[in-house]
């Protein structure tokens, strides 16, 4: 059952985020019946499923909300933004109940909410009888000493087959209650040629000896009681069937065509008298004989009605599985295994190369091919659409703009773009912060916007799209833009720059991402909470991503995030530098050239000219080991570095390589330069370069040398 509770928990979370989305849409159009219905349905699902899985308080609470939306649906209550805001709060509350259904504090809040709903309902003309708490009617079976005999008539309506009811099943259910004498009445059966096989012409009279009570018996007919004639009477309070001969006497009376309840009752009274006189215990074998007789009666009735079972064919049953929910833990371990598989496969390739066996090479290449496909599918499974977090942003924009008295619209494009689940969850906070900034600092208040000939409602564009193995997310606003003068002033005041520094716009915007920077004069409780763009930048860098800001005063600001699609495996180039192996991520590689060692040695200011283009470069063999004896021919790999292209010099280029990233400990002195390490096919370790950091590090070092 716990497993199902978990299922419900996940589902409820989905429903709640859908609720939020629906409410936001509804806010723009109070009249939209479809959306109102959707809210109603969500409440209904929460109520129904909640009760099934033991979330009773949650279920009761959503029941009230369901009633509310039922009234709204039928136009007795008019929807307004107050109710929507209230419903959102209720949604948040349900989410808390989901964590702890029995919490006393929460229950108090629940009651407050319920009162609010009740007031809404009272104001409308409806009787709030629907709010009366459902009492599940568990029919308790009263403990009874002995059996009673019931007289039951069951005369189904002619069309009973139309709704799929098989009356015989109900008769069977009664027989299961105890011992029964069943009589089939077929007086109404028309002539053979007039019989309509889809109609029921039969009825039953049953004498039932059972320890159940009258209510249990009428419950049997609960689905058909309205259209069928049903009579249930107590024939005798005593266990008549235990009396010798009673069954045959009653049967005789019952099968007499003109019998009725009165006649039977008279017979029963006579038998009761005998019973109290004799009080004889009947031998068991005789009783069982009577039972046997009952059975035959019943079976004969059955045979008359049993329809030929023409569907008894053994066709295989299709099993419907469209989607499967898998716990993310399982996915994680799958990814781990795939990583190991990739490593093992790399070893196989190495061994195939060293052994120079054709057979093994072919095999290992096939294996490589399969591994890649396997890897791709495994990673694909972890991808979820970015839409999952966009809903949160919509809520944020709504709440924030309201509290700041601004009008802001969030337009999200490309929300179907898929990203690794871990990246998505890590992205949520940074993006929230960027949006907060945009609303707080970017978008102006309506009056100002009007004065500046802008539409009163500001817009924040959220745009996600793929770019190679990365995803690019733009968050743009059409607000005031960044005032560079203000930023410079502030940076000066904080000693971040010096007077007379000549900074490009790009550099100025980058200042915003330095620790502890905030331009807002009044620190609001929204963006000035000490967590600034520097934290955003750090989080994005942790994900191996990049952040850049562009802005034009009066027009707006745009923040661009570039992120890898996945974190744990990267495609790279395996190179050697001073006979040590390194991996350069393929995503940053632009082009590869061969250069003569002399050309590098003769270069000035670490810039060389290749095919007419000037490239700054970092001579890695020299940087890593000053005394290194270099080869005649070197490889020159150009990589993208921010918006430029920079060269990296390496000794040898081995091959393309799928690197499984393993974290490196803090022991590694230069670990700032590397994104991680990987184990090569021969068991050696290769570091995976973070080219941006490598270039940052060595170009700074160069400056220091100059000073």
């Amino acid at each position, binding site marked *: 059952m716990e497993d*199902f509770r978990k*299922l*419900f928990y*996940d*589902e409820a979370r989905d429903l709640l985020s859908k609720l939020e989305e629906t409410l936001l849409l509804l806010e723009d159009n109070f009249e939209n019946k479809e959306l109102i219905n*959707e809210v*109603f*349905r969500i409440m*209904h*699902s929460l*109520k*129904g*499923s909640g*009760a*099934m*899985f033991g979330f009773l308080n949650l*279920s009761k609470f959503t*029941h009230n909300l369901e009633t509310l939306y039922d009234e709204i649906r039928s136009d007795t209550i008019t929807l307004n933004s107050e109710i929507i805001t209230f419903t959102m709060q209720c949604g948040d509350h349900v989410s808390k109940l989901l964590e702890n259904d029995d919490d006393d504090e929460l229950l108090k809040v629940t009651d407050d909410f319920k009162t609010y709903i009740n007031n809404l309902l009272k104001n409308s003309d409806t009787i709030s009888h*629907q709010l009366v708490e*459902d009492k*599940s009617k568990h029919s308790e079976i009263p403990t009874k000493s002995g059996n009673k005999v019931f007289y039951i008539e069951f005369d189904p309506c002619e069309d009973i*087959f*139309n*709704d*799929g*009811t*098989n009356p015989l*099943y*109900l008769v*069977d*259910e009664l027989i299961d209650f105890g011992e029964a004498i069943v009589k089939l009445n077929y007086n109404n059966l028309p002539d053979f040629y007039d019989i309509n096989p*889809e109609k029921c012409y039969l009825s039953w009279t049953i004498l039932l000896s059972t320890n159940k009570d009258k209510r249990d018996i009428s419950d*049997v007919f*609960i*689905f058909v009681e*309205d*259209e069928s004639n049903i009579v249930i009477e107590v024939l005798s309070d005593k266990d008549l069937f235990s009396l010798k001969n009673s069954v045959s006497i009653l049967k005789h009376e019952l099968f007499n065509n003109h019998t009725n309840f009165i006649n039977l009752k008279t017979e029963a009274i006579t038998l009761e008298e005998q019973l109290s006189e004799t009080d004889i215990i009947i031998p068991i074998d005789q009783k069982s004989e009577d039972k046997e007789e009952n059975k035959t009666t019943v079976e004969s009735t059955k045979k008359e009605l049993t329809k030929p079972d023409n*569907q*008894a*064919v*053994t*066709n295989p*049953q*299709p*099993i*419907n599985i469209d989607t499967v*929910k898998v716990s993310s833990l399982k996915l994680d371990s799958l990814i781990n295994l795939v990583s190991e598989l990739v490593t093992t496969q790399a070893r196989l390739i190495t061994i195939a190369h060293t052994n120079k066996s054709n057979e093994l090479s072919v095999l290992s290449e096939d294996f490589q091919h399969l591994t890649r496909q396997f890897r791709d599918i495994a990673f694909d499974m972890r991808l979820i659409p970015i839409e999952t977090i966009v809903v949160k942003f919509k809520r944020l924009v709504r709440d924030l703009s309201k509290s700041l008295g601004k009008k802001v619209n969030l337009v999200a494009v490309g929300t179907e773009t898929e990203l690794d689940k871990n990246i998505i969850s890590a992205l949520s906070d940074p993006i929230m912060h960027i949006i907060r900034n945009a609303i707080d600092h970017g978008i102006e208040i309506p009056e100002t916007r009007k004065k500046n000939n802008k539409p009163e409602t500001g817009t924040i564009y959220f745009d996600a799209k793929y770019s190679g193995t990365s995803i690019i997310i733009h968050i743009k606003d059409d607000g005031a833009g960044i005032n560079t003068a203000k930023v410079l002033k502030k940076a000066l005041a904080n000693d971040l720059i010096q007077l007379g520094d000549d900074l490009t716009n790009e550099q100025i915007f980058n200042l915003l991402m330095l620790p502890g920077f905030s331009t807002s004069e009044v620190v609001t409780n929204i963006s000035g909470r000490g967590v600034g763009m520097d934290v955003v930048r750090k989080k994005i860098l942790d994900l191996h991503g990049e952040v850049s800001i562009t802005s034009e005063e009066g027009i707006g600001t745009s923040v661009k995030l570039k992120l890898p699609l996945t974190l744990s495996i990267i495609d790279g180039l395996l190179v050697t530098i001073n006979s040590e192996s390194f991996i350069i991520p393929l995503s940053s590689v632009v082009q590869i050239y061969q250069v003569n060692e002399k050309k590098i040695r003769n270069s000035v200011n670490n810039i060389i000219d290749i095919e007419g283009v000037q490239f700054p470069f970092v001579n890695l063999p020299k940087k890593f080991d000053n005394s290194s004896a270099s080869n005649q021919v070197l490889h020159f790999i150009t990589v993208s570095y921010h918006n430029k292209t920079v060269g990296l010099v390496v000794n040898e280029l081995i091959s393309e390589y799928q690197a499984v990233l393993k974290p490196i400990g803090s022991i590694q002195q230069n670990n700032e330069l590397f994104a991680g390490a990987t184990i090569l096919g021969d068991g050696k370790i290769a570091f995976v370069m973070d080219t941006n950091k490598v270039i940052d590090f060595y170009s700074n070092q160069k400056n220091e040398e100059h000073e």
Partner: protein
Amino acid sequence: MNKTILIVDDSYSIRESIGFFLSDSGFIIIKANDGQDAIDKLDGTKIDLIISDLHMPIMNGIELIKNVRGTGNYRRIPILLLTTETLKEKKLEAKKAGATGWLNKPFDKQQLLGVIKKVLR
């Protein structure tokens, strides 16, 4: 031969848990997300019983019943509605549309099997 039950509910957890209980009790289970999906599943496969939720998007339980009863080979199939309504009118509406029976949520495994016994043997 095992009986086949089509479970129609837009709630994943309900669908799965009922499915689990019933396949545990020896039934063959087919699942559908809503009324329309259920209609699509009635493609000639032998199905002995439909258990459907009342409120669903796209096509609700009542519409599903009307659809099934209206045409085709399945028009005499027993259909049980899962409801949370305690109101009598709603049940009459369901019955009028052709529901064989109903079951109030929440219910437990025994109640579920009890109701199934009324319409399927």
